[in-house]
């Protein structure tokens, strides 16, 4: 009964806080090592609450990868939820890693994954509760440790001015999609890893061990690490600004001429043999993604012009289907999970999808394992599969047209025509479905009032498809749910130059859609909801901010801003006071149309896709309004080919041949294909309606004949 299992939190705290399971580190398949026998202790943090962080695939991959190294022990850290946050500050309890329950400040690395901008205040929470100075520059000196959660120096004798040795405090390293514009949070990080973790981490860890054994200073190590491809050490780089506030120059400081001027994104070449999860962590409490995840593909072939993931994860690479089958079987067995899902940016583009899904259903369906299929295009195959794996009556279909009108869908290069949507919805309705979810974005470049109203019109056309089905064959009423988010321009997308709007404008856009929905014939079958507008503007500030935004983030954190992605903690007023206190001009970052020749804060990163390609795409979108083919149809020479792998090459007689750009021929052909598709859709629809009409006519005639016959009988 005595409780000598080590927990960083005493029992009375664990029993008082919400969900103590978040802080125990006793999940199945956690890795435990003898800390005296490893050289590197790596704390891998997700700056949000446990349920969200535990659902993240990337951390689980890196967790397995690091722990394969005998000399490294990787553990996990999540943001303590607000209830525990308060207690830790009050009692000066240092932030701890879950597996060992040891304080983070004793670790060699604190890795923080940056999946969305709204976690930035939580990044500061992690540093602060760990007892680390928030600024990387302050961590260079000896005895820099702080009292957890207070920012106060831990030791009155400190600040000797002497350089800290490597190993005194953890190296704070950031990664993930937000690291592609690290500038707003650059002051807080010792380094960023730009790109996919599977490539140069070993090199970095080896260097760390070597330097620590040699007794180098923290600064010397950082300088050496900055020479590794893909590693960006912000303290050695400086921006200079023009009078109008835009960037004049950016690069390594003059005393470090050997440092690279551009940081090159890292990408895995052979995706099938890249490290994957060895033994998935199985949490006790319910988390957002509580299932086995199979990553089938990385990168996307469809260049939607708003989508950052579609650009930064290029080139598109697929995992061998036989490898996936083995991984599925192994991961289900060692986890005991009852659900498996596929992960990619667009699963329908996976070449062996049919083979893989059929295998999963045949092999695991009989063992009562659920197969979840997200991000599938609606077509005959996906409908057939879905009717096998889910209850048609309960499940809903999801479309993401992103824009209401065909004009705007072409501007954003969505590559989805109205016929595709209506045909897919019609097929699904005839297959028994009656619920549809539609996702759109508002506030995109060139968008006008008509485009917004067309969102409602598209929903009505989908409703028409449903009510076209004869009443006796329908499955009750249909329910179409429209959700709109507000568009945020992201770095390394063709829309990175675009303007944003004021929160009030966004709410007006939503009001237009809402009014138009109410005008629709089947408005009672259409539901509409929209996202927060103020959060969108903050996200926009962070996404395209520069180094000067850091002091605003720090100020907001000092005012108590935290968990900004959570409605219950979101507080716009804290941000307003932080902006006015630090003299930040929000409009400069959000409402300004960037000039095409402007030096952007993230231009020093080479993400594979060239700025010229992005600019051509921006022109095609806003000047011509024309679409660009996907990577399978044509190589558009975006720049990602230099990674030497993936979709950029065809295999001809066992040899890798670079793909070619023949846009003109494609465009001519595509015009014909689209016209044919439209004609076919309309002809089919006309035929269906005619057939129904004829059937109704025949029924009426039969009824009349019967009536007539009855009348005759009555007479005789």
């Amino acid at each position, binding site marked *: 009964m005595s409780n000598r299992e080590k927990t960083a939190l005493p029992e009375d705290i664990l029993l008082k806080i919400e969900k103590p*399971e978040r802080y125990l580190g006793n999940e199945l398949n956690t890795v435990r090592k003898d800390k005296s026998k490893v050289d590197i202790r790596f704390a891998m943090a997700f700056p949000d609450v446990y349920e969200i962080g535990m659902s993240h695939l990337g951390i689980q991959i890196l967790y397995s990868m690091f722990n394969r190294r005998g000399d490294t022990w990787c553990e996990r850290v999540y943001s303590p939820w607000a209830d525990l946050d308060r207690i830790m500050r009050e009692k000066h309890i240092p932030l701890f890693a879950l597996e060992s329950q040891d304080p983070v400040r004793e670790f060699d690395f604190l890795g923080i994954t940056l999946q969305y901008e709204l976690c930035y205040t939580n990044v500061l929470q992690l540093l602060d509760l760990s007892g680390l100075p928030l600024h990387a520059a302050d961590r260079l000196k000896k005895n820099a440790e702080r009292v957890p959660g207070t920012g106060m120096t831990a030791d009155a004798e400190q600040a000797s001015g002497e350089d800290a040795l490597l190993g005194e405090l953890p190296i704070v390293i950031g990664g993930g999609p937000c690291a592609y514009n690290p500038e707003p949070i650059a002051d807080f990080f010792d380094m960023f890893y730009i790109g996919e973790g599977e490539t140069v981490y070993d090199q970095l860890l080896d260097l760390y061990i070597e330097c620590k054994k040699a007794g180098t200073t923290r600064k010397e190590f950082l300088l050496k690490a900055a020479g590794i491809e893909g590693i960006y050490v912000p303290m050695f780089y400086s921006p200079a600004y023009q009078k109008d506030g835009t960037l004049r120059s950016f690069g390594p400081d003059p005393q470090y001429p050997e440092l690279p001027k551009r940081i090159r994104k890292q990408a895995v070449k052979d995706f099938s043999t890249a490290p994957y999860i060895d033994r998935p962590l199985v949490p006790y409490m319910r988390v957002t993604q509580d299932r086995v995840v199979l990553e089938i593909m990385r990168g996307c072939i469809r260049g939607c012009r708003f989508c950052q993931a579609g650009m930064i994860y290029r080139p598109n690479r697929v995992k061998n289907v036989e490898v996936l089958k083995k991984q599925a079987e192994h991961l289900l067995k060692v986890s005991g999970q009852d659900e498996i899902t596929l992960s990619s940016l667009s699963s329908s583009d996976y070449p062996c999808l049919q083979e893989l899904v059929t295998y999963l259903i045949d092999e695991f369906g009989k063992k009562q394992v659920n197969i979840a299929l997200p991000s599938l295009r609606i077509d005959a195959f996906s409908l057939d599969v879905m009717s096998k794996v889910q209850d048609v009556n309960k499940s809903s279909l999801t479309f993401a047209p992103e824009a209401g009108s065909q004009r705007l869908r072409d501007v954003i290069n969505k590559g989805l025509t109205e016929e595709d949507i209506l045909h897919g919805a019609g097929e699904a309705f005839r297959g028994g479905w009656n619920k549809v979810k539609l996702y759109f974005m508002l506030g995109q470049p060139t968008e006008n009032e008509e485009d917004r109203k067309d969102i409602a019109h598209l929903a009505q056309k989908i409703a028409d498809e449903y009510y076209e089905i004869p009443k006796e064959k329908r499955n009750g009423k249909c329910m179409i749910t429209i959700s709109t988010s507000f568009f945020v321009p992201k770095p390394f997308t063709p829309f990175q130059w675009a303007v944003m709007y004021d929160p009030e404008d966004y709410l007006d856009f939503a009001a237009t859609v809402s009014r138009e929905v109410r005008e629709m014939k089947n408005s009672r079958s259409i539901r509409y909801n929209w996202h927060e507008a103020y959060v969108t503007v903050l996200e926009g500030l962070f996404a395209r901010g520069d180094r000067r935004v850091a002091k605003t983030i720090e100020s907001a954190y000092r005012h108590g801003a935290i968990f900004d992605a959570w409605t219950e903690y979101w507080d716009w007023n804290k941000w307003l006071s932080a902006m006015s206190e630090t003299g930040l001009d929000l409009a400069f970052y959000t409402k300004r149309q960037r000039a095409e020749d402007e030096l952007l804060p993230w231009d020093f990163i080479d993400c594979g896709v060239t700025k010229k390609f992005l600019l051509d795409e921006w022109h095609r979108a806003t000047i011509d309004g024309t679409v660009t083919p996907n990577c399978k149809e044509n190589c558009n020479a975006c720049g990602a080919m230099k990674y030497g792998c993936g979709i950029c090459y065809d295999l001809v007689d066992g040899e890798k041949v670079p793909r070619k750009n023949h846009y003109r021929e494609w465009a001519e052909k595509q015009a014909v294909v689209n016209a044919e598709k439209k004609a076919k859709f309309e002809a089919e629809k006309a035929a269906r309606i005619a057939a129904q009409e004829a059937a109704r006519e025949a029924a009426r005639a039969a009824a009349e004949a019967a009536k007539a016959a009855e009348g005759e009988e009555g007479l005789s």
Partner: protein
Amino acid sequence: MRMRIKYSKQGLMKYIGHLDMMRSMQKLLRRTEVDVTFSEGYSPHMIMSYAFPLGVGMTSDSEYVDVDLNKSYRSRDLVRMLNEAAPAGIHFLDAREVPTGKGNKGMTQVARADYTLQFRQGHEWPESWKKDFKRFLSQPEIMAVKKGKKTEKEINLAPLIYQAAVCPEPHTVEGIADFQAESSGYLPGGIREAFDNVRQGDIFLALSAGMASNIRPELVMETFAKQYGYEAEEFLFHINRDEVFADPFSGDESGKHNFVPLIGMGKTVE
């Protein structure tokens, strides 16, 4: 066949609530090759039922779950398979076949539960409590307020406390002694020691349990503390549930109890 499975829930597992424990038991069963019976319908689930949910914060040596299986397993094989898939803190002790049918459900059979309580460090009462506690127990009537979700009612605890002892002798329970966690590499050092003195406690209570009248050990201690003026805050004790009993012959004329551990209602499959 329906198997009654007995396991202990120790260590950090005490923070895992009943619903999460149920989900994790299903995952555990999936990690074994045990052929569990599923219900019919669109979302099939394993046919299993728990005898007596354990509150968060309590440890136990006697958790019971009845599971329906599609084929027959020897008791010892089943226990071995389950232990191979068990996470740290869960240890399977026994598995026996029980008859199906409503009256044979573990939940309806529960009649008594034994607990060992230990003061949390720094919360010990002054020595005088031992004498006072004996006095408290010797009263013919011990009135307590039992709080339900909505209702509050007064009940007499005296006939529902079957046994109570101060500072019981340490003793071991079958199955705990052969706890393999450390040698199998699941747990870091030091845990073994924690399990060895699991039975050392300050108070032993045998209380009425189950659907008819369920008395929580906390209620007994709170009632005592209030009557005699001792600190009565929440989580004063570590509490371990030692055993859960059925009372299969309670209906006969003698009016006497014949408590049998819940596992004793089943038959070992050889």
